[in-house]
């Protein structure tokens, strides 16, 4: 909503850059989050060039090797290189986490706005959401996966459907309270159109709760994907994801702990990074907090 008019009242491009740089200085944990997340994304993209071998290559003769110079993270019970599998696994985990966070916040935002403004839609949509919320999200995702074939896309869709009710409920409650705020009434009284009220007064004030919820969903979707893979309802077993590497290593934990350890570290680091970025962005985008300190 950068109209020509509002531009004149806002800082110029250079000032914006200063503000962003200042926000970064004030939020070192957010930078840490960005660095870790960026590294994970780089790893996922550059997987073939990071001294990996085919993550699906089976070599029974070299099974259950300890981490060594040749096999950095060791090998699993089929002799597959855990390092290669972990690096390639970043692709699945990140793709699932980020796309579930994006789609479920977008869909939840739209549903939340509609239910917050249209009473008829509110009664219908919210009853459906209540129904979905009464099923634990993992079970719902398992049930949805059981209906379709195992693929990354279906995992994303299943986890998104399981997460949407929570976002909808959150945004609906935010919209309902914002609608009654005097600043919205003052905007109506000064002739502000409906679209502009949504864009300038309602949406910007949903950003903070949406970001927090979105980063939480991103982290929890990666874990849900790991759980789905773990119980064999997620990505097909030949495609490595952090979840199914750990699932396969579970029974061998006592003799080959490194199978679980390395994908576990990657998963925890990524989840941590996403949460750091989310918290930092919420503070940086809030004018009340951004200029303090």
């Amino acid at each position, binding site marked *: 909503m950068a*109209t*020509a*008019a*509002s531009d*004149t*009242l*806002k*800082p110029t491009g250079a000032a914006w850059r200063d503000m962003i740089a200042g926000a970064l200085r004030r939020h070192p944990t957010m930078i840490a989050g960005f660095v870790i997340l960026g590294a994970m994304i780089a790893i996922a993209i550059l997987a073939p060039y990071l001294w990996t071998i085919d993550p699906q290559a089976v070599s029974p003769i070299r099974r259950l090797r300890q981490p060594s110079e040749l096999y950095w993270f060791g090998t699993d019970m089929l002799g597959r290189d855990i390092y290669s599998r972990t690096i390639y696994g970043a692709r699945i985990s990140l793709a699932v986490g980020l796309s579930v966070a994006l789609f479920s916040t977008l869909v939840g935002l739209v549903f939340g706005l509609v239910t917050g403004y249209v009473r008829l839609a509110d009664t219908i949509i919210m009853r459906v959401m209540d129904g979905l919320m009464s099923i634990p999200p993992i079970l719902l995702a398992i049930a949805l996966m059981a209906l379709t074939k195992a693929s990354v896309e279906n995992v994303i869709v299943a986890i998104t459907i399981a997460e949407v009710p929570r976002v909808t409920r959150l945004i609906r409650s935010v919209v309902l309270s914002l609608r009654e*705020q*005097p*600043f919205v*009434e*003052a*905007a*109506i*009284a*000064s*002739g*502000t*159109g409906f679209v*502009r009220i949504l864009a*300038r*007064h309602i949406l*910007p*004030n949903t950003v903070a709760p949406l970001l927090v919820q979105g980063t939480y969903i991103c982290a929890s979707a990666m874990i849900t994907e790991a759980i789905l893979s773990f119980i064999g309802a997620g990505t097909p077993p030949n495609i490595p994801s952090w979840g199914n590497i750990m699932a396969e290593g579970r029974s061998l934990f006592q003799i080959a702990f490194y199978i679980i350890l390395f994908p576990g570290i990657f998963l925890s680091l990524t989840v941590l990074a996403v949460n750091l970025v989310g918290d930092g962005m919420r503070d940086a985008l*809030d*004018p*009340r907090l951004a*200029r303090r300190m």
Partner: protein
Amino acid sequence: MAAVLSPERAPAAADSAPLLEVVDLKKHFAIRKGLLSRVAGYVYAVDGISFTLRAGETLGLVGESGCGKSTAGKTILKLIEPTSGVVRLRGRRINNLGRRDMRPFRREMQVVFQDPYSSLNPRMTAGDIVGEPLINYNLARGSEIADRVAYLFGKVGLRPDQMIKYPHEFSGGQRQRLGIARALSLNPSLIVADEPVSALDVSVQAQVVNLLMDLQAEFGLSYLFVAHDLAVVEHISHRIAVMYLGRIVELTDKQSLFARPLHPYTEALLSAVPIPDPQMQRKRIILMGDVPSPINRPAGCHFHTRCPYAEAHCRVEEPAMQEVHPGHFVACHLRQPETPASKPVS
């Protein structure tokens, strides 16, 4: 600042058509209960109020919490749909207009809210907040907006360099000035001020009230000034309407209200105003009991449950609004035009 000290000046063109005319305005909120949202009752927030407001005049609307004075203001602005009644602006009926037809009239009447914190969007800069109405009505474009906003900032006593600040960087009084600048930006004829100073501390209250009076003198504004603080209302108003449980019980000019209140409720309200002299004693009228619920109101005169002079027929018959003296309206069985006030206040 000379205008500040002369609130008694006669309203301009007293005999012309009123700027705002409200006739028998009602707003009843339905209370819904149960699975099927059955209507279980109504809150009679505003129950048939009538008054007129001339150009350049300030009408104070006073009453205790929950008497419906804020709802009355919002209903007149059509922020809340009235249940029934007529609102006319410059003789044109506006309460039945749709959203699009209402748009030109919105320009004429603006609002200043009580809470200077929640009435400004925390994510917009002060300049954007004041400039938004200009964009809505295409009154300025490009750099004109910033110029106009800077002019408005000056009018309300803010510096133009504060335009890029966010609301949380202002004090309560400055925020209220921002709210006033936003209301002024469309050059309205009427401003509904919904307890604009009750959230501010006393020294700032005086500044904001004086600012409102300066602006009235400069732009010929009319105010519907909703408040519960009688001292503030006495300072700023030309006429005062006293509300009790959704109805106006007394309506007259400021001087006669304070010198000769006719309704027993007004008497009690006035006797509660503190006098800045600890030695001075005055007859206090202490009302017993609480305000009755606006859901189950007493029959007859709504005030009879707490009225020290209530008689038998007060409990049965609703008093009508009558002009007891020229320009002095009161709704009380004990104050009939032929029998002047029998119980004057000390």
